């Protein structure tokens, strides 16, 4: 359980996190989602006691991180996979961290096996690919067998096999009753990993919702129709109060404002032949873009002159 109350972080005149309150529950994968610069990493750093909040507070299991008696046993974290001494062997890197919290040596072998790095345990970390570093970072988070796990962009640099593995791991960790917080700027990634979403934009909480709810609440729901009598159907739909957009193909139209059942009934009533009738739900990606449109830090201009 992670709880933030009125969390604010300012760096000089820049507000990185602006009055953030949330609670992250155990047993779920919570996705921390937002464009670059939204304040995801800063918030994670405050949860982990690396940065001090300008205002407000954040606790893990009811306690401020710095007051945890055995931090790695309670919280496992991966912030930046590359942040390690390249001259140290993978095994020794984990051993340093394990020792600091009185974790037994055999647990180091265990986590190396879990992440599939047992074969390179004796190699120095500077020779590792980004994907291997991510696995090593995840291994260090698992060392203390903690009830709370925090991962900042864990799939960065992983190959498809690795991405699948991380997803399965997150789901398994949550299924064991742990609290799992995963950040990403990729909505598509969160769509398949997370149960719950915290959407950030410009340091503010834009949405605190489940993945299903986010899609359902999106305004972009339309019906895709292919018909040899598309023009006639378009006219009937407009009469019924819907908005109709035509594409380059004269047989294809996108209908907004009525659902697919209604379109089907209209077509039947007027004897219109349908080749395709597809309800198009906004993808999570679109729902996300719509939410964060006003809070993207660096937006490309609409057209290039």
């Amino acid at each position, binding site marked *: 359980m992670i709880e933030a109350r009125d969390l604010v972080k300012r760096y000089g005149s820049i507000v990185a996190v602006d009055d953030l309150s949330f609670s992250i529950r155990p047993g779920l994968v919570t996705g921390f989602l937002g464009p670059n610069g939204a304040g995801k990493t800063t918030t994670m750093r405050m949860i982990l*006691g*690396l940065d001090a909040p300008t205002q407000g507070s954040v606790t893990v299991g009811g306690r401020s991180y710095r007051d945890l008696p055995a931090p790695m046993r309670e919280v496992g974290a991966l912030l*930046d996979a590359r*942040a390690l001494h390249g*001259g140290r062997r993978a095994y020794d890197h984990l051993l*340093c961290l394990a020792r*600091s919290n009185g974790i037994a040596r055999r647990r180091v072998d265990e986590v190396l096996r879990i992440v599939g790095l047992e074969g390179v345990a004796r190699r120095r970390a500077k020779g590792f690919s980004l994907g291997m570093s991510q696995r090593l970072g995840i291994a*260090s988070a698992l060392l203390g067998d903690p009830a709370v796990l925090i991962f900042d962009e864990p799939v960065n640099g992983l190959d498809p096999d690795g991405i699948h593995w991380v997803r399965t791991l997150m789901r398994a960790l949550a299924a064991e*009753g742990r609290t799992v917080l995963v950040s990403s700027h990729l909505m598509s990634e969160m769509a398949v990993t997370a149960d719950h979403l915290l959407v950030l934009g410009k340091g503010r909480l834009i949405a605190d919702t489940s993945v299903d709810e986010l899609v359902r609440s999106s305004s972009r729901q339309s019906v895709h129709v292919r018909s040899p009598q598309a023009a006639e159907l378009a006219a009937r739909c407009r009469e019924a109060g819907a908005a109709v957009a035509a594409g380059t193909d004269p047989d294809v139209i996108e209908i907004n404002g009525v659902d697919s059942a209604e379109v089907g009934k209209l077509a039947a009533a007027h004897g219109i032949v349908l080749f395709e009738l597809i309800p198009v739900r906004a993808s999570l990606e679109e729902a996300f873009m719509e939410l964060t449109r006003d809070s993207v830090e660096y937006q490309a201009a609409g057209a290039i002159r």
Partner: protein
Amino acid sequence: MTDTAIAPAGPDQRAAFRAATFGDVLRSEWTKLRSVRSTFWALTMTVVLGVGLGAAISAAAAHGYAKSSASSKLSWDPTALSLDGIGIATLAIAVLGVLCISSEYSSGMIRASLIAVPKRGRMLAAKSLVFAAVTLVVGEVTSFTAFFVGQALISGHAPRAALGDPGVARAVVGAGLALTALAVLSVAAGALLRHPAAAIACMIAVLFVLPAIAQALPDSWRNPVTEYWPTQAGGQLASVHHAANTLQPWPGFGVMCLFVAIVYAIAWTLLDRRDA
């Protein structure tokens, strides 16, 4: 890759865990120090430079002794000659001390370290203590070896010193102690400045550049500087002959320790307050 069993039991059945102790952090810092190659090389350099340079200086001076003037024969200090190399070996310890914390900042490892040990003062204390202990052992080995090798080379060409002579044992032990104080200073400097290059430059300035500049100052300025400059004052513990405008051995070492304590306190405070 498909093995996703994280623990034999779910978190509810996890074995009760004990709080992390200072001893755990000490073991962690020891593991950190011994698991990078730069430690081995820097410590080897300390011994090789300390003993080797001391031997070369002792041998050269001993061969020139017969032809030297009466006044230089009066100030003949075989102990100081044999320990002369340690002044340069100091640099290796300073660099290693600075690196053992500032390299964590440059690599980003500091974040993993502080997530593991969020009580930051504890991490700094453990790091300093481990490095000080290692330096004390290496420093004493270096100074005793340098002393015996130096005296063996002087013997037969010029008067030599023995450990039983007044002040000699204190000077040989003191050379290792002064090195240990410097080790703590360099860890504190690394924590304070966080950039390896900046912190190493700062240590070189404190150790070599500023004392050299002081030599160019008029007497009224130079004398108090050479008397109280921390590294000069601390060095008195390692000398047998008491020169003009220098502190007595133990008060001198006290000045050095006070300086180290002040820098350490500033480093501790800032480490605790700054975002990592």
